[in-house]
């Protein structure tokens, strides 16, 4: 098991390297610069000397390859560099955003799972029935809403009209603040989960071993508990993992809308300000999260499915 984790960790490195390279290339040709973003408000012209000094200070006057080399060298020592914008180490900028981001992703996934999986089960129990069509339609509807639109709708209904929940913001110790953004973010993985679960249940229900179990004279509840659920879980786990893994990156819009202090909104702000080191750092974090979650999913697989050996 340990060897497996170690091996997978090593496999992360090339992936990460390519990601860093891609982002580096993209942002080396992107129009606009950190310097020009300083005066984007059009209020005060920034002193040309200051600009030149800034360029020098951040090494922006060096050739591209040298900058890339410097960055990679830093990265090898776990140094993400200095943020152009805040002039602090990038890690100091990212670190406070990490926990809110993870919290939101997990909360959204929790919502998606407790609604989506039962929905998929219900749909699959009577395939082709009205209930099946209805629940699937409901699930796909969830997939068909523009996120910010849905989020805004939630705000209007639950915060403004009903006054049940706060409409925005982050409170470290409050569950109430996370509910609306989690639902807004969770609705699309919810739909995906419902769909996967339905397909999975149908798949498993048609499997030979379920016929065997039926031939053994098992009652339906025992059948579902003993033979179907775990096998469906194996199928659903992948989707679940992929979704948790990618939610951190998908949360951009929702984080912006709900003023949620996550990695996604940091990323957008940093792209707008052309704060490349922070963009790099944020993307690295998002990618790492994805890779680590997937590794965990594989470990979980091994725990559930004896066919999969982790060495």
């Amino acid at each position: 098991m340990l060897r497996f984790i170690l091996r997978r960790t090593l496999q992360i490195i090339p992936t990460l390297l390519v990601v860093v390279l891609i982002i580096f290339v993209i942002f080396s040709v992107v129009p606009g610069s950190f310097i020009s973003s300083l005066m984007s408000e059009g209020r005060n012209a920034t002193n040309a000397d200051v600009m030149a000094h800034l360029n020098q200070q951040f090494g922006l006057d060096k050739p591209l390859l040298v900058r890339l080399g410097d960055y990679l060298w830093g990265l090898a020592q776990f140094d993400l560099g200095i943020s152009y914008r805040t002039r602090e180490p990038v890690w100091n900028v990212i670190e406070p955003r990490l926990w809110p981001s993870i919290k939101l992703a997990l909360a959204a996934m929790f919502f998606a799972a407790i609604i989506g999986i039962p929905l998929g089960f219900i749909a699959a129990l009577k395939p082709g029935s009205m209930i099946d069509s209805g629940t699937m339609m409901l699930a796909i509807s969830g997939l068909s809403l523009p996120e910010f639109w849905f989020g805004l709708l939630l705000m209007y209904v639950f915060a403004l009209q009903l006054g049940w929940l706060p409409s925005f913001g982050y409170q470290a110790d409050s569950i109430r603040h996370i509910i609306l953004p989690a639902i807004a973010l969770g609705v699309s993985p919810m739909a995906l989960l419902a769909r996967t679960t339905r397909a999975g249940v149908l798949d498993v229900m048609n499997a030979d071993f379920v016929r065997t179990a039926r031939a053994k004279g098992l009652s339906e509840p025992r059948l579902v508990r003993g033979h179907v659920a775990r096998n469906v879980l194996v199928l659903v786990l992948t989707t679940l993992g992929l979704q948790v893994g990618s939610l951190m990156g998908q949360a951009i819009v929702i984080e912006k809308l709900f003023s949620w202090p996550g990695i996604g909104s940091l990323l957008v702000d940093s792209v707008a300000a052309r704060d490349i080191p922070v963009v790099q750092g944020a993307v690295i974090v998002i990618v790492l999260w994805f890779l680590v979650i997937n590794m965990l999913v594989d470990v979980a697989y091994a725990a559930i499915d004896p066919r999969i050996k982790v060495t």
Partner: protein
Amino acid sequence: MRLRFNLVLGLLLAAIVIIAGVFAAWIAPYHPIIDADLMNSEMPPSWEHWMGTDGQGRDVFSRVLYGAQVSLTVGLVSQLINSCIGTALGVSAGYFGGWWDDLVNGLTNVMLAIPSLVFALAIMAVLGPGLPSLLIALGLTNWSWTCRIARSSTLSLKNQGFVQAAKVAGFGDGNIMRTQILPNIIGPVLVMATLGIGGAVLAEAALSFLGVGIRPPQPSWGNMLTDARELLRAAPWAAVFPGLAIFITVLGFNLLGDGMRDLLDPHMRTRRA
């Protein structure tokens, strides 16, 4: 079977959107850009303006119709690009194996790991807003699933009799891939693409919200929705109708894709729904 009902509904919705887009120029009563009358801005739906007017005094109905053109173009073309890239990489990787397979696999993992919205955002930042950039951004960032499916299907097809036979018969690799393998994986790829259309339409809306979508004043549903989000109270119709259009389109193509999948193989192993 009731599932057919969903398929038919999906087909119907998709057809409505396609017809609206193709015939926008004939159906639309007004020009979506030039026919703006600020004096008549934010008018509620009426006989003259079926869906009311927006903040600029433009006919929402006409803009929704022309928006269908943009959204469909975004959806179809970006998925076409995705499917081509994904299929080409997936089939060749599965077929040839070796270092090429490793490379494609690695690349696919990278693409999966970077959230497509983040990637698209970055590409849009480089290319600047506009339809061509959007097509490129969305076309380059969503092929990993298609690639995986194409690859795994190719792997299983590769060892089957008819492919082996073709090999023995001395057909070239390109020929085999084209004539033996491609026809057998086109179904799942088509399903992925259909499902992807909805995703692309939504991505357009999200990118517009982030300020890097279609170049205004060209109407796109994402643009319209973004512009109207503050008018929700004053002129809800300006936001409701494009929102509805997105909803119908995405729902339609999703139902269509799901239905197609069930039709192709009712018990297809759906590791990813």
